[in-house]
């Protein structure tokens, strides 16, 4: 009897390749005849390239070609996609500092890099718009409003509330800092292009590359089996990858382009800087009467992702009769923006949960109790019930595991030597999103079953998810499943690795594909004349744990396939949400509890410990789930204490290296106690998984900020919470 692997501690199936260094990432491919490209980027913030001198570069040893706006590689304009709204080298406009204005190709990496430094450009410079703070309110993009009967405006609702809180918060640009810098290896064989390039959505990326190169979609294959992190930065295709593919086409030889870490900061999108104001109106006991959430997000002229931090946070979190969400976008001459893990939810919930903590302080209501008093059982704007919500249990279990009852509400009341100790909490939520998805299951005559879906494993555990679900469905050990992702040539319909949606969407497709493949195997067993089951009615033949059984005979599928002379039997299935799903609001929930210490004299803030409890539906693999949730909480430490890239008036990022843009290191990581409730969502799918890649980041920064307030009595509204703000 095989024990179901679902929810157990399963080692990653891609582990052995990753720990031995033998998993190939995009820059690890080395086709014959490979040459190397290096980018040239604009050194002014906005303007026009008047001319470029490439003579020294072209004369440098080993140089094969230098492409510029004056000697471009042909690319089509982007159409209908968000993201960069121009194609590199097609015009002389400089939209932001760091825009690609040249590509040098040489026989070695060192020579390409050296020659790139020899390219010079003349510019006409126009002033850049770079300051979000100075720009004033942006252009409204997404207004959400619900007012109780008889209430004329949100301002009226706030004005009539016994207690009001106004909280303005801000954060600078954030960078994803996936450990693998963007890399592309492009290989043309006749008119067929193979691109090795990290991508969160291999099929969408391949389609984009085809469209921008002006070739048939079928002519482009993108392979990204191993990708060194995504976090959003690999969901679109950026100009650099397009230029690499175009250069390979022009030069008729494979080209590899690996960005330097510094180039990634500007050539690849960042999380938009955003400023937000929350206004809460409440009764004296903390019950909310009104919630207003205004935001001004950076939207670069060069294109980017629209920062809408209120929509999936303040419009969902608490029972409130009056809500207004006003999300505005401000055009700046900055490098492009893009979604970054919990893209709008992390900043949005930092704002809301900071304000809620201020309301708790003002009303004297315990922060957990305050949230329970405002508990929403349905979407407060649209009125749909939540499909499944056990956030109250998260609060209760979390408070108990953490020891919340030992907290004193009065700031600066707990010390440890020169350290002020504080505790804080915050609630988390993140939309659950099930997309239509497809998968393929293939019984192979080597005795394994290949389970494939054209999604991507950017560290999320998708390989292992396919193996676990396939093994469970087919009654086989996990080791009998060969999982495949990261290839646009897999059957159409793989979902992108974003929105915490891969598991939610793909599990049902894998289950359907496995069932269909079993059916096909049975059908083949009765149809194939060489089969011992030939001629039987399919209904009399059954599949059980890898074996085909009928009439007292039992044959494993490997033997059966070999006997039949069939290398494999497969099925592809697509699975989509039920129509009934539209009646529900699907969200994941969680509660963070955190303890910090702040040095009394130097102001250094450090996180002592975290306890977080999540309601994320059914979990496929406990080991991978813990990694995702814990890792995202550590991102929250970065969000709260470390990460910021201010942009200077000349359009230059002030912290465009890993020495200046600080992400958490091992020594910044405390003990983290992560727990999840095992409550499958009954409405999202038969399986009941809701996705958990991002929720750990949502509100973990707020919990830290609230704990810092409890430690010091200082409320820091402008992230990150650095030493100089705590004195």
């Amino acid at each position, binding site marked *: 009897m095989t024990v179901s692997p679902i929810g157990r501690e399963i080692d990653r199936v891609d582990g052995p390749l990753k720990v031995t260094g033998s998993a190939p990432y995009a820059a690890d491919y080395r086709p014959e005849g490979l040459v190397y490209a290096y980018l040239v980027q604009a050194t002014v913030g906005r303007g026009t390239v008047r001319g470029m001198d490439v003579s020294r570069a072209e004369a440098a040893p080993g140089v094969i070609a230098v492409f510029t706006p004056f000697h471009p590689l042909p690319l089509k304009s982007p159409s209908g996609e968000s993201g960069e709204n121009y194609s590199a080298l097609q015009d002389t406009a400089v939209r932001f500092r760091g825009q690609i204005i040249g590509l040098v190709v040489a026989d070695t990496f060192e020579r390409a890099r050296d020659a790139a430094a020899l390219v010079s450009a003349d510019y006409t410079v126009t002033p850049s718009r770079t300051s979000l703070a100075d720009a004033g309110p942006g252009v409204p993009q997404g207004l959400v409003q619900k007012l109780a009967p008889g209430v004329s405006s949100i301002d009226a609702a706030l004005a009539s509330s016994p207690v009001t809180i106004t909280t303005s918060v801000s954060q600078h640009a954030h960078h994803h800092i996936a450990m693998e810098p963007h890399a592309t290896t492009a290989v043309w064989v006749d008119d067929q292009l193979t691109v090795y390039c990290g991508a969160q959505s291999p099929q969408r990326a391949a389609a984009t590359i085809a469209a921008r190169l002006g070739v048939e979609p079928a002519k482009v294959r993108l392979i990204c089996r191993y990708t060194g992190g995504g976090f959003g930065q690999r969901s679109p295709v950026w100009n650099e990858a397009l230029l690499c593919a175009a250069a390979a086409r022009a030069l008729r030889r494979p080209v590899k382009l690996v960005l330097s870490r510094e180039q990634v900061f500007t050539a690849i999108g960042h999380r938009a800087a955003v400023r937000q104001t929350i206004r809460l109106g409440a009764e004296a006991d903390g019950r909310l009467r009104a919630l207003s959430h205004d935001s001004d997000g950076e939207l670069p002229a060069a294109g980017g992702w629209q920062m809408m931090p209120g929509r999936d946070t303040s419009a969902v979190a608490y029972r409130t009769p009056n809500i207004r969400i006003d999300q505005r976008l401000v055009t700046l001459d900055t490098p492009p923006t893009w979604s970054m893990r919990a893209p709008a939810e992390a900043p949005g919930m930092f704002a809301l949960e900071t304000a809620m903590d201020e309301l708790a302080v003002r009303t004297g209501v315990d922060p957990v109790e305050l949230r329970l008093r405002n508990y929403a059982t349905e979407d407060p704007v649209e009125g749909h019930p939540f499909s499944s919500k056990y956030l109250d249990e998260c609060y209760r279990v979390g408070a108990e595991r953490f020891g919340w009852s030992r907290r004193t509400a009065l700031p600066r009341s707990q010390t440890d030597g020169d350290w002020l100790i504080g505790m804080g909490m915050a609630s988390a939520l993140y939309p659950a999103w099930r997309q239509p998805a497809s998968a393929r299951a293939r019984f192979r005559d080597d005795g394994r079953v290949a389970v494939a879906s054209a999604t991507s494993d950017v560290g999320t555990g998708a390989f292992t998810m396919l193996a676990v679900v396939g093994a469970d469905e087919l009654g086989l050990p996990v080791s009998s499943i060969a999982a495949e992702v990261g290839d646009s040539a897999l059957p159409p319909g793989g979902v992108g690795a974003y929105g915490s949606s891969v598991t939610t969407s793909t599990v049902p497709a894998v289950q359907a594909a496995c069932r269909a493949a079993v059916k096909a195997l049975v059908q083949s067993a009765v149809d194939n004349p060489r089969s011992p089951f030939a001629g039987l009615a399919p209904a009399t033949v059954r599949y059980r744990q890898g074996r085909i059984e009928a009439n007292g005979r039992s044959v494993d599928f490997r033997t059966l396939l070999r006997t039949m002379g069939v290398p494999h039997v497969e099925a592809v299935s697509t699975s989509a949400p039920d129509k009934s799903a539209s009646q529900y609001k699907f969200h994941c929930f969680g509660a963070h509890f955190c303890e910090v210490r702040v040095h009394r004299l130097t102001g250094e803030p450090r996180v002592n410990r975290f306890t977080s409890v999540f309601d994320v539906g059914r979990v496929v693999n406990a080991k991978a789930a813990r990694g995702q949730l814990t890792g995202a909480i550590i991102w929250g430490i970065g969000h709260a204490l*470390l990460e910021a890239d201010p942009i200077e008036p000349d359009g230059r990022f002030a912290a465009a290296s890993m020495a200046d843009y600080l992400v958490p290191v091992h020594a910044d990581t405390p003990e983290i106690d992560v727990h999840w409730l095992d409550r499958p969502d009954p409405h999202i799918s038969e399986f009941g998984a809701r996705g958990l890649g991002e929720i750990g980041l949502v509100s973990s920064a707020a919990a830290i900020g609230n704990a810092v307030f409890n430690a010091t009595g200082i409320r820091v509204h402008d992230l990150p919470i650095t*030493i100089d703000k705590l004195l």
Partner: protein
Amino acid sequence: MDFLRPTSLADALSAKADQPEAVPIAGGTDVMVELNFDHRRPSALLDLTRVPELATWEPTADGGTRLGAGVPYTRIITELGARLPGLAMAARTVGSPQIRNRGTVGGNLGAASPAGDTHPVLLAVDAAVELRSVRGTRVVPVREFYTGVKRSVLASDELITAVLLPRAGGPQQFSKVGTRNAMVIAVCSFGLALHPGDGTVGTGIGSAGPTPLRATEAEWFLTGELADGDLWESPKPLTDSVRRRFGELVAEAAAPIDDVRGSAAYRRHALSVLARRTLGWAWQDYRTGGDQRCA
């Protein structure tokens, strides 16, 4: 680009004389950052890793230490913790363990970055830098070595061959504030050395000015206080007002700017805190274990 690989100091000096523009490279942890991105395009590199004279340390006749410019931080930590306590403390905070296995004090001095972690201690202990060329050898007090942002008195035909550190006659301390718990460039740092032998103290400030700085007023003040109270002979706990004033004078000696790592105001504040605290630790050390150390 030429790559010069001398195997003796004499060869290294003559190579540097022939090609003064050659960039010396030992651990590479400073130079390579620039080379990797073509910020510098030197016509030649001078590999010093094969020059045995640079890779050793030895005691000097007066009880001090001559530290070869190419001795990596890891060896300072593991071999010289007792002889050079302040420098070893600073070395422990440099970059990452991987960087400490390659990086050297010679490289720190060559780069002369105000954020270099070893400068405050070198200033506090009144170290000297040995510079050699085919023209000869000169020894420059480290207090006269730095001349501007990433600039020093090093001549183009010279190599930094050693650092001369006096015997640690009393407690030494180093402390650094960083945004992250490890692998971080200092927001500011401070080095302190007590010299019971001649009744003086030494200070050094990092990351708070165009060059590493010395807090001369603070040194004079503390030297005077210790002498007036006869505290070297009969060490009592320092009063809060002495420690506070010392901290204020250290902060006043700094010339910080605002940058992504911290504001000028914070740096001054943190320096006063670091100065007070390192003084507290060092004095406590002197009162309890100082005699042994001097022995």
